[in-house]
Each structure stands twice: as structure tokens, then as C-alpha cells.
């Protein structure tokens, strides 16, 4: 089933307010909003979120994947800069603007395969949403969940309700010590399909393993976004067919094969161009 066949819910700018914020450790927060009567998002979609109280700085909305949908959609936020820090100290009742649901949803799971979800840190959000939607179908995916330390694995307990969870940490402070790809390698076969969300390099490694094993692999793209709905052309990601695709409309959820991972590293990873503007 290709993406274009999925009927995506209508996008709108929702004026709402924060229902509650739950902190997980120091850097993660689950924010739940009031959205009665909204067309819910599909797993994998995201929203562009801003507080009405931000004024002119931070200027832009922040892209965040839905952690859950329905009348009280939630987000999992990692504090890493000015915008996410503000999200991480928002109090119930604060007025928010949520533009969404945006972007493509996860490809519908193949009923004949087992789903392997590969998450890095906060990348858990759209995968957990997918896992929960699978629960209704009687499926229990395998979640391979990696983080730097045991503090970088938010919602791993929660995940155990809908998934079989295996955890890795760089420092061995929880679960397997090492990379999530080491676990993945052993589980790939022609009975599975992979969904992954996390740092670019992790997703690229996951995609490579899947290509080699001929396993379908779906990724969730990340890029700086100004609009989230296809008009600023800021969120370019190098496309396998040449040129660029746009993470907010062609993605975020897309076949790993559609991405030119080499150019992605070349542009995102490398030191930026030097000298005069070109």
C-alpha cells in the first residue's frame, strides 16, 4: 500500500490549551492537550506547536510527532533548546496553537509480517503511537530501544504494555551495552518489517541493515522546519532519485529507500561550506 492511498486527516490550526504536563527525568515531558471533536492524527504524523504566549521569540512553531491522538492528543518533548525548554515548563491552562495533523503517516503494517520498531531516544514517540494502534489488531511488535544512558529512554516502561521491549545504552547503564543496530542485525529475516525513528545516523545504519537483508524499512525524517505544510521549502532532504524531497510533506514517514543517505550525511554531517556565500 503506498502512501498516496492513505486519506490523511484535514489539517487545521487548533487553538487549545495544555491539559497537563508530566515530567520524565530532567529532560523529557509528556504534554497532553485538549482537542475535542478533532480529526485525530494517524501514527507517524506530527504537529507544529507554539504557545500563544511566546510572542515574537521563539518565532517559529516546533515540529513534534504525536505520541497519541484522539480528543486529548499528547506529545513527548525532549528539552534541547529555547522552544523545547519552554514546552518543558508550560503549566496546565497555557494557551497553545497546534497546526496539524501534518505530514505522512506510517505505512500500514503488513498483516503477514512482524513489526520491528527501532527507536533512538525521543524517536520513541511516533513508534509508540504505532505500537498502540497495533495492539487493537492483536499484534505485539518488537521494540528495540537505544539511548546514551538509562536516562535517555523515556517511556520504556510504558512501551512494555504494547511491545516486547529490548533496550540498549551506550554506557551499559540499562539493558544491552552498545548500539541498537547490534540487536537489530540478529532479528532480521523475511518475516519482519522495520519502522525506525531516531538520530539520522542511527536511521541510516538501520536502513542499511534492512537493505542488505531485503527487509522493508520505513523511516521518520527529521529536518529543520519553518512551516510544516510544504510552502517554505526549508526541510529539504536529499532524495534517492536526485534533488530533494521535503520532510514535512513527502515525509516524515517514508520508505528508507527514498532517501539518499550518502548526501544526507554529506550535507547534514559535514562542516558547512566555507568562504563567501555561493
Amino acid at each position: 500500500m503506498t502512501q498516496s492511498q492513505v486519506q490523511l486527516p484535514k489539517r487545521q490550526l487548533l487553538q487549545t490549551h495544555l491539559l497537563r504536563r508530566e515530567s520524565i527525568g530532567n529532560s523529557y515531558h509528556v504534554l497532553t492537550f485538549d482537542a475535542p471533536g478533532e480529526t485525530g492524527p494517524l501514527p507517524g504524523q506530527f504537529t507544529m506547536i507554539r504557545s500563544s504566549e511566546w510572542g515574537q521569540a521563539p518565532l517559529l512553531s516546533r515540529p513534534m510527532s504525536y505520541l497519541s491522538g484522539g480528543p486529548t492528543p499528547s506529545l513527548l518533548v525532549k528539552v534541547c533548546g529555547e522552544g523545547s525548554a519552554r514546552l518543558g515548563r508550560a503549566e496546565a491552562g497555557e494557551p497553545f496553537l497546534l497546526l496539524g495533523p501534518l505530514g505522512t503517516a506510517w505505512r500500514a503494517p503488513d498483516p503477514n509480517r512482524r513489526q520491528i520498531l527501532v527507536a533512538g531516544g525521543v524517536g520513541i514517540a511516533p513508534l509508540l503511537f504505532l505500537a498502540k494502534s497495533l495492539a487493537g489488531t492483536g499484534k505485539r511488535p518488537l521494540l528495540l530501544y537505544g539511548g546514551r544512558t538509562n536516562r535517555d529512554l523515556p517511556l520504556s516502561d510504558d512501551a512494555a504494555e504494547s511491545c516486547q521491549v529490548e533496550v540498549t545504552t551506550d554506557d551499559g547503564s540499562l539493558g544491552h551495552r552498545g548500539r541498537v543496530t547490534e540487536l537489530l542485525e540478529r532479528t532480521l529475516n523475511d518475516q519482519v518489517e522495520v519502522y525506525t525513528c531516531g538520530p539520522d545516523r542511527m536511521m541510516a545504519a538501520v536502513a542499511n541493515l534492512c537493505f542488505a537483508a531485503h527487509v522493508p524499512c520505513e523511516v521518520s525524517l527529521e529536518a529543520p522546519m519553518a512551516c510544516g505544510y510544504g510552502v517554505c521549502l526549508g526541510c529539504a532532504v536529499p532524495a534517492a532519485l536526485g534533488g530533494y524531497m521535503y520532510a514535512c510533506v513527502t515525509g516524515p514517514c517514508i520508505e528508507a529507500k527514498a532517501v539518499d543517505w550518502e548526501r544526507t550525511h554529506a550535507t547534514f554531517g559535514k562542516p558547512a561550506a566555507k568562504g563567501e556565500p555561493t
Partner: protein
Amino acid sequence: MTSQSVRIGSLVLKNPVLTASGCFGYGLEFDDFFDVSTLGGICTKGLSLKPRDGNAPHRICETPAGMLNAIGLANVGVEAFCRDKLPILRERGVTVVANIFASSVDDFVALAERLDGESGVHAIELNISCPNVTHGGIEFGRDAKMAAQVTAAVRAATKMPVWVKMSPEAGDLVGVARACEDAGADAITAINTIRGMVIDVANMRPKLANATGGLSGPALRPIAVRMVWELAGAIKIPIVGIGGITDTRDALEFLLAGASAVQVGTASFRDPCSAQTIMHGIREFCEERGCDVTELIGKARR
């Protein structure tokens, strides 16, 4: 009842609010949000003769009350625009200003000629001020002679109104605008972005792959208002004001400074309905005062 229509040369707009080039796609991405035909008009993403992929990422980054972009004029090309986008816009009755970009006078002329035959295009806006491309961007817009040359050539190639979009980096902005006026421009759009840079201190490199990008958003607004004010004291053709408009008050600043219409750019990113909200806001402001919108134009100067 207040009249909201404004005249930009021979073109009469329903109201003074347009959307800015590069910030509204091709006007077809807004179906879920509102009816864009209610706007004074839309400016298309900058069109070139051939489709362009644009610059390598990262293309954008945020700055205090602003953002930088170095999109590099990614666009579908004028052919695809005329084939795939324009018919729909025309059918919907959208007022379309085609923003065009080229790296030579001949190519500007070729673009204008190509669009001249197309019904549904209501004006041409010459982007002689793009900071993000190697050739044909800002150098046209910085120099009065070159700006006049492009304007005159396009003027001769089309019957449509020609708007020329100013670069705020021109040392002598008024001189460039006057030269364009003399060369037959119907209106001056002011302003495009000013080049800026953000350095990622952690990895010690510029954040944008292009190193520099154009600054837009509220941070830029006081500069844009000042430039519109200066231009309004120096030229006779209408001015279309642009730069950091996010709400009705901001838009009114430009009208009062002397702009006959305004364009909403970056603000559409965080609220796709910004331009519509501003359009309603200006009408209400006029209704409260019992005046037509044209009475506001340049009022802070009198």
C-alpha cells in the same frame, strides 16, 4: 461600508493584503485552511525558466524574532507552473503575481514573455534581490543601472504590470527605486531579506550549508518600515510593503508609512491564515474609523 480595494498601477486589488513570494508556495497548499481568492493577491514562489532543486540543507535556521533562509530558489519552473498550478488558480479566481528570477536580462525577458500569454497572471514581480544564489540575485538589485536595465527590458516584453522587488542591501535604495520607476516599473516591492549568518558554536561552523541566508520576520520590520517611508518620499509609483508583518498593527504601519499594499511572508509559516486575519483586521480598523483603506496610505507622513 468602507472600500478596501487599492490600485497598484493599472491593477485593482480587492484589498491591500497579499502573500509574499516563497512563503505561500503556489497558493495551492491552503485548501484545508482558507479560500485564498479572498486575498488581495498571492505572489508565487520565485519562478525560473528551468526547474531548480535549490541549495543543500540545512536551508533554514531561527534567529531572535526572525529566521534565515537559503532555499536557493527551488521551484518547479515556469512551464510546470503554467501547466499544473496556474489553471487551478485561474479557475478559483485568485489574483496571481508571478515572482520571477533569472541570472541574465535575456532570461528575465524570456520569463516575462512566457507569462505574458497566460491569463490568470495579473502582474509580474521581478526578484532582483535574492541573496541566496550565485548569479543574478542581489547584484541586479544593488546597482541602479542594472536594475533599470532589467526593468526596461521586461517592461518592453509584457503588457502586464511590472513590480520590482528591492534589495535592502542596495547602498542607495532610493536611487535604485527611482531608476526602476524611470525604466517603467508599475510598482516597487520593498523589501526582500538582508543576508545574515548564524554560527553553530558547538561544532564551530555556520548553521546553513550556504553559510549565509536571508533574514526575514519581525526582527527585520523596523528596517522595512523605514525603507518604505524613505521610498514613499522619493517615488511616485505605488509601493508594496513587506518585511516582518505578523498582525494587523504591523500591516497598518506599512500603509501609514506610504505603502499601497502589503505582503505577508514569514508569518504564514506559523499561521497559514495570517494574511486572511490581517485582511479582516484592516477592514475592521477602517470600519471603526469610517474610512476607506486608501485614506490610510501615507497618513503618518502628513
